[in-house]
């Protein structure tokens, strides 16, 4: 008999990881701390409304939002330029050769594969604490990520229009702009909007590691167990994030932009003039924000001298590499299974009741905005440090991201089949599983493949809890100023991320092709 899991079952299988986890968790608990968790949870209903607290939270939030906006705007413009520069179509039209495009693409893989947190910590050492550090930490990897998406979008567009214009005597740059520009715009803006959401999360996260803004406030209140003040910040951040998501969602609908993991065919956007105006507004916006944040261009050029490389390669080799890489991979796998499998499982559990869906949405929203290192710190109150604790924190964050997408795409899918099954007497959960989850399963898994690759890159952010593989070692080497170790660790991390990216790309292509 042949065993073959059908798509709706495939999305649930990763949730099986809950079984070993349920066995492991009691052993990891160190007994105390539940009282504190209770205080933390109950403080959610009574955030501090003291004027002093509100003022400091609002000030922190403004800095975070400004860092996010500035980092995002610069990375979008830079990414657009780099994306065009690494497009095969563009180089082929201009010079007839695609070799330069391939070279630039390969070069951009390096900034892309290193997480903004690592960039932030490295730049902090190089440039000292200044507002531009967080902005640059966002700009470097984001620009490279945007460039990759732009060049992929560009190269996927049919080139017949360009050729037709060229045949009519138009110069190459004009032909490219006319033929590809309008088709590219909706994709750029849709992805750009998504990057803005990411930038807000990144800016908060960088704050947790001391780069300023609300994140720093959150971490300080967390560490001093001032839970009421902590919740003031969290609720405000939630309000900002949800309105940002709602606003961007509204723009997506208004401009008929492709949804992120498309069940619908991407459509050509309307209202091109509005879109262009928004893009053009980015430049003055960046200047304004830079000024408001107190970014000093000249300070960017003064670098602190680094301590010399010790060239202590034997000690680099002596690092427990298999354990470090293994820990990182185990953490990523565990977090990915938790996030990917739990989202559909929770959706199924909440399905029959409208009342359950609203709290589910809220928990997912909290998961998205909540910096994973803070969850990790919270978990440390009851659990021992290690891979599992880190994975829980990372998994919760990504559950929020995946859950929202799953809910959105399930809402977009036609209810007809589910209705037919319910009419034939199946319960609401089974009707949802068979009728709707089977439709969204393939695109969901394809997105999950991409997300797992993001989680691998991101696993460094929960390294605060210790013993989580490369990330924890990286923080240790950083605080010991062991530059040779640091260099080796970053390189290995980047290599691992690139391998993961390649693997997830292949898996995604296979999933979507078999659909």
């Amino acid at each position, binding site marked *: *008999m*042949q*065993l*073959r*899991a*059908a*798509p*709706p*079952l495939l999305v649930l299988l990763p949730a099986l990881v809950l079984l070993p986890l349920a066995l492991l968790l009691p052993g990891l608990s160190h007994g105390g701390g539940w009282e504190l968790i209770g205080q933390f949870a109950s403080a959610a209903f009574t955030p501090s409304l003291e004027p002093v607290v509100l003022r400091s939270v609002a000030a922190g939030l403004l800095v975070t939002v400004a860092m996010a906006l500035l980092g995002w705007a610069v990375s979008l413009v830079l990414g657009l330029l780099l994306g065009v520069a690494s497009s095969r179509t563009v180089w082929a039209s201009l010079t007839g050769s695609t070799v330069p495009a391939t070279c630039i693409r390969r070069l951009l893989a390096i900034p892309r594969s290193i997480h903004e947190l690592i960039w932030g910590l490295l730049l902090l050492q190089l440039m000292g604490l200044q507002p531009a550090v967080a902005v640059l930490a966002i700009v470097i990897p984001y620009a490279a990520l945007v460039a990759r998406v732009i060049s992929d979008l560009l190269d996927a567009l049919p080139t017949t229009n360009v050729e037709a214009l060229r045949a009519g005597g138009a110069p190459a740059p004009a032909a490219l702009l006319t033929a590809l520009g309008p088709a590219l715009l909706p994709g750029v803006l849709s992805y750009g909007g998504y990057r803005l959401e990411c930038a807000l999360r990144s800016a908060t996260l960088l704050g947790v590691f001391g780069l300023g803004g609300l994140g720093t406030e959150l971490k300080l209140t967390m560490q001093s167990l001032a839970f009421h003040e902590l919740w003031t910040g969290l609720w405000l951040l939630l309000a900002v994030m949800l309105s940002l998501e709602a606003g961007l969602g509204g723009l997506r609908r208004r401009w008929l932009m492709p949804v992120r993991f498309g069940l619908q065919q991407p459509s050509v956007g309307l209202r091109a003039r509005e879109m262009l105006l928004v893009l053009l507004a980015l430049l003055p916006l960046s200047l304004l924000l830079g000024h408001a944040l107190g970014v000093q261009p000249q300070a960017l050029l003064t670098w602190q001298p680094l301590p010399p490389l010790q060239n202590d390669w034997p000690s680099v080799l002596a690092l427990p590499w298999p354990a470090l890489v293994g820990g990182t991979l185990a953490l990523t796998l565990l977090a990915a299974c938790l996030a990917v499998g739990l989202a559909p499982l929770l959706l199924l559990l909440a399905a029959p009741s409208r009342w359950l869906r609203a709290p589910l949405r809220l928990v997912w929203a909290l998961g998205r905005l909540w910096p994973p290192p803070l969850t990790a710190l919270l978990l440390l109150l009851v659990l021992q440090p290690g891979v599992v604790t880190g994975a829980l924190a990372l998994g919760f964050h990504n559950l929020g991201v995946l859950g929202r997408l799953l809910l959105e795409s399930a809402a977009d899918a036609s209810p*007809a*089949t589910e*209705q*037919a*099954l*319910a*009419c*034939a*007497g*199946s*319960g609401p959960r*089974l*009707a949802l*599983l*068979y*009728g709707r989850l*089977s*439709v969204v*399963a*393939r695109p969901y898994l394809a997105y999950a493949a991409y997300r797992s690759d993001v989680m691998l890159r991101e696993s460094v952010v929960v390294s605060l809890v210790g013993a989580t593989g490369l990330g924890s070692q990286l923080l240790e080497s950083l605080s010991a100023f062991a530059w040779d170790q640091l260099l080796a660790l970053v390189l290995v991390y980047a290599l691992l991320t690139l391998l993961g990216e390649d693997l997830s790309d292949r898996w995604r292509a296979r999933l979507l092709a078999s*659909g």
Partner: protein
Amino acid sequence: MNPVLELRGITVPAQPRPRLEGIDLTIRQGERVALLGASGAGKSTLLAVANGLLPPQQGEVLWEGRSPARSRRGRRLQQARIGTLWQDLRLVEELSVQQNLNAARLAVWGWPKALLNLLLPLETDACRQAMATMDLEPHLLERPVSALSGGQRQRVAMARLLRQDPVLLLADEPLASLDPRLAAELLALLLRQALPPRALLLSLHRPDLLEGFDRAIGLRQGRLVFDGPIAGVHRALLHDLYEGTLPCS
């Protein structure tokens, strides 16, 4: 014969006029009933009330002499006795034919079996039998529905109905988008399945296909204007029902 479906004083309000108004109707075991009427006359609404999709705001629906069960499980088992052939078929494209046929058993299966059905082929004999009744090759069971032809899909949807084994078969214009030969074949299959204790209620926009039915019901602007043996369906009545827009006759 016992009644399978009873509608009593069903009204579905809407603007500018009710979609259904004061419908009284009883369908008994073994009856094969054709539902006639122009577009917008309320045929689909009546079928939606009959299969429980649309709870009526006024009036009462009885299935096999009982009103809708209060308990969830009771209601599910009641729904399982009503089979609907949808015009757009509503098969799960991503699943295999066998998984689709078995989806008709979800009302009586528990979770373990429903999950197992997504992992390995279950109740193959019963599925083969349903396929054979619909003149479908058994090897198609393993195919995903998305790989089937239009005619095959139509038959798989029928086979799924047989797997459900309902006492009341409802069909909303199942022949509308089919070529004449396929339409005649499908209709013959449907009529053959409607033997006691089963009953069939099928909405039809082609009065030329009435042969084989026992009884016809005519709807006009949400009201029941005719209910009798098909021998009583004459040209003047059809003209009245379709208000001069009679299709081929």
